[in-house]
C-alpha cells in the first residue's frame, strides 16, 4: 500500500473525536434546554460537530500528490484481471 501511515492515524483520531462528542458525558455538557442565538444548544452542538467532521473528512479524502489509494486495474465493468499470474 502506498498510503502514508499518518493519514490513517488522523482518520482514527477523527473517529474518536466523533465518538467522544456524540456520546455522553461530553454530549451531556451541551445537552441543555437553552437557546443560544435563537437556536437550541443541543441542536447547534450536534449539527456543528457534524459539519466539522464532514469538513475534516472532505479534506482528508482529497487526493493529494503521493497519496494514492492502491488502484486496481480493470476496476470498471470489464472482467477483472485476477486470473493473471
Amino acid at each position: 500500500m502506498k498510503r502514508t501511515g499518518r493519514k490513517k492515524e488522523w482518520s482514527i483520531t477523527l473517529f474518536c473525536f466523533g465518538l467522544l462528542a456524540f456520546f455522553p458525558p461530553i454530549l451531556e455538557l451541551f445537552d441543555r434546554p437553552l437557546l443560544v442565538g435563537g437556536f437550541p444548544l443541543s441542536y447547534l452542538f450536534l449539527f456543528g460537530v457534524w459539519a466539522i467532521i464532514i469538513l475534516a473528512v472532505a479534506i482528508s479524502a482529497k487526493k493529494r500528490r503521493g497519496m494514492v489509494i492502491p488502484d486496481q486495474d480493470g476496476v470498471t465493468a470489464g472482467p477483472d484481471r485476477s486470473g493473471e499470474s
Partner: protein
Amino acid sequence: MVTTWLVVGVSFAYLGLLFAIAFYGDKRAEMGGSLAANPYIYTLSIAVFCTSWTFYGSVGLAAQSGLDFLPIYLGPTLVFILWSFIWIKIIRICKVNRITSIADFISARYGKSTALGGLVAIIAVLGTMPYISLQLKSIATSFTLLLNYPSVAPGLEAGGPFAFDTTLVVALALAVFAILFGTRHIDPSEHHDGMVAAIAFESVVKLCAFLAVGLFVTYGIHNGFTDLFEKAAAIPELSQNLVVGGEGGYGRWITMILLSMAAIICLPRQFHITVVENVDESHMRKAVWLFPLYLLVINIFVLPIALSGKMLFSGGQADADMFVLTLPIVHDQMALALFAFIGGLSAATSMVIVAAIALSTMVCNNLVMPLLIHRGRVHVREGGDVSRLLLIIRRTSILLIMLLGYGYFRIASESYSLVTIGLVSFAAAAQFAPAIIGGIFWTGAARRGAMVGLALGFLAWCYTLLLPSFAQSGWLPISFIEQGPWEIGLLKPYALFGLEGFDQLSHALFWSMLLNIGSYVIISLLTHQSPLERIQGTLFVDVFKHTEGRTGSHYWEGTVTVADLEELVSRFVGSARAQKAFEEFARRNDTVFKRGQVADSGLMNYAEKLLAGAIGSATARVMIGSIVKGEIVGIDEVYRIIDETSQAIEYSKKLEQKSIELEDTTRQLQRANDRLKELDALKDDFLSTISHELRTPLTSIRAFSEILSDNPNVPDEERHHFLSVIAKDSERLTRLIDQILDLAKMEAGRMQWTVEDVDPAIVVRDTMTLMDGLLQDKNVDLILDLPENLPMVRVDRDKFMQVLINLVSNAVKFCGQPEGRIAVTLAVVETGLQVTVQDNGKGVPAANRDRIFDKFHRSPGESNKAPHGTGLGLAICRQIITFFGGRIWVEEGDLGGAAFSFSIPVSRNEMAA
C-alpha cells in the same frame, strides 16, 4: 381537495419517469457512457439510505422525543470517517472475488460455505421484511391522507379498502420496476446502471421535496428558525423536544448510534449500492463526505417541522409521522403537499427497489440455486441454458419479497410508528456486523463461529423483536409479551431473564449481540479452520497485499478443457457473454485458447469468478469442482501455498545449501584448473625437453656419420672413436625412446606386466652384479645391507629390477666426488618391504622433493648443465612402484646426500604363511 385521479396520475407519471431514466441509463451503459460511473451519481445512490423513515418517520420521532432522530445519521457519518479501513477494503475484496451480495461476502469469507450463505439470505429476507412494509405503509398512509384530509385524520386507518388496493398496486408496480431493471439479464458484474441512475434521481427528488416543505414551514408559517425555536421554547411541554437526553436518558441514543453504524454497512441494500454497484474505488473519495453532507442537509428541517406540527396540533389530533404532508395541506398548499407526497413516494420506492434487487440476488444465488443443485435439479454436466432459470428465480423472488413485505404491513405494521418498524430491521441487519467486520480484520475467524453467532443472534432478534411485534398486532396472544410464553416470567421477550430497565431496542440488541459476538469469538477460537477457510481468510484480510502484486487464488488443480469451461459459464451467463468474456481474458493474457486445450489455473479462477457473479461464490466453486477432472488440491499442498513464509524460509535454506555446494565446487574447480595449468606447463616442458633430448644424440650421430662418409681417409683410430660415439648415442636414443614408450604405455595402462612372487634379495643381488661394472668405473663404494629371511614380494621382476637400476645409477651420478659412496638397504617395515638407496652427494633440496618424480624434472641450478640422463627415470620408477601398490619418496640420508626409498607390499601368500 385533490382528486384521486390526480394523485394516482401523478404517482404513476412519476414512476413512468423513473422507468424512462432507468431505461436511458441502461442504454447509455450499453453504449459505453455509463451514468453510474460518476462520483455524484454514486453518492446520490448511496442516499437510498434515506427512506420514508427519514422523510416521514424522523419528524414523527422528533415530535415524540426531540433530537432522538439524529443517531440514525450520526452513526453512518462516523463509519464514513473510517472509509479507507472499511469501505475501500470491502469494495476491493468484492471486486477481486466477484462478490455480489452480503450473503456471498460472508459465505466466501468463511470457506465458501453454502450453508452460511443460505442462513445469511434467510436473515436478510426476514430482517428486511419489516423495512419494506414500513415503506408500503408510508405510501398507503400518505396517499389516504392526501385524498381524505381532514375526514380520516387523526385516526388513520391504513386498512381502508382503497388503501388496501393502492398499497398492493404500489407493491406490485415496484416489483415490476425491480424486475425490469434489476433482472434484465444475468450480468457477472451485477451492475445495474439504469437502476442506479433512477435511484440517484429519486434522492434528488426527496431532498428537494423535504427542503421545500422545511422552508415553507420555517419561513412561510413562521419567521425563520429563531422565531420558531423561541415559540417552541416558550411552551413547557415542547422543551423535551429541544434536547437529547430528556426523560429516557441516553441509553436509546447510544444504542441507535451503534445500530446505525452497523446498519450502514450491513443493510443488504446499502451493501449493494455502496459496494456492488461501485464502478470505481476513487468515487468513494467524493461520497465519503458528500453523503454525510446529504444526511445533514436533509435533517436540518426535521426539528422545525416537528415543532411546528406539535404547535399546530397541540391536542395530538394528527399523526406526527405525517406532519410533512399535513402541514402544507392545513395551510392550503396543495401543490406543495403533492410535491411532498411525491418526495415521500420517491424515498419509499428507492428503498424497496434496491432492497428487492439485492435480496433477490441473495435468495437466488445463496438459497435456491444451492438447493436445486443439491437436489440434482440442475445438472451441470447436461446441456441447457441455466441463465433463463436464474432470471426466473430472481424475478419470482422479487415478487415474493414484495408480497412478504406487504404481508408484514397487513399483519404487524399498523400499531407501530415508522421508526420503530425500521429499527427492527436495523437490529436484524446488525447481526451481520460481527461476521463482516471480524471477517475483514481477523484471519482466525472461523466458519463455525460465524454460523453459530449469526444463528443465535438471529434467534434472539426473532424472540425479542419480531415475535413481540406479531403479539402486539394480535397475531400472537398479548400475554406472550406481558407474562411470557407459558407464563414463565423469565422468558418475557421484552425483559429476557429478568433484564429490565432497558428500552425494547437496547434490550434486544444487548441479548442478540451478546450471543452473536460471544459465540462468534469463542467458537472461532475453539475450532480449527479448514484450509479453504484459511485461504479465504488471508485473501480477505490481506486483500491489499494480494491485489498489489498478483491477484487471485491459484489453487485449482486438475484438468478441464477450455471448451468445457466456456460451455459451463455460458449456461449461466449466456453464450454470447461467455464467449466475449473468454476472448477478453485471452486478449488480456496475449494468448489464444484452443477449444480442446487444458485450461490453466488462471482461466479456471477466472471462470469461477464469472460464475460467482451469477450464482454466488459457493455454488460457483461446486460447479467448477464438478467438471474439473482430478482433485481439488490436497490439504498439504494448500497449506504449502498459504504458508508463503515457511515456503520462503525453506527456499532460502535450499538456496544457502546450494550456495555452499557451489562454493565447494568452485574451489574444487579452481584446484583442478590450477592442476591443469601446471600439467599444461609440464606438457610444454616435456615436449621441449623431449625434442631437445632427441636432438642432442641425433645431431652427434649425424655429424660423425657425415664426417665418416665425407672423409674416407680418416685414420682407423679416429674412425673407431667416431663409430663408438655413434653407437653410444644411438644406444642412448634407443633407451630414451624405450623409456618414453614405457612411460606412455604405463600412463595409458597398456603396459604388459608379469606379476609373480619374487625374492627381493635375489633381485637386488642380480642387479648389483649388473651394476658392478659401472661402480668399478666410477670408483664408487657400495654398502649392501641385505637381512636374512626377507619376505617374498609380488611384483614384475624386470620392472622391479629397472627401478633398482634407475635409483642406483642415479645415486652413482650424483654421489660425492672423488670418494663416492652408495648404500642400498632392505628392511621389513609396517607397510611391507622398504628399499632405500642413498648416496653421499649434495642431496635434494626440500622444495624439490615432491617434484623430482615428475617427467624431465631438473633442479633449477643444474638446468644449464648437460643432462646426465633422460629425466624420465624417476618418473618411470614412480609409475612402477605405484602400480605395485607401493610408494616412493626422497629424504635426507645418513650419508649426507639423498636417500631414495620405496616400499612395496609383501606378497599375500607370505602373509598367510
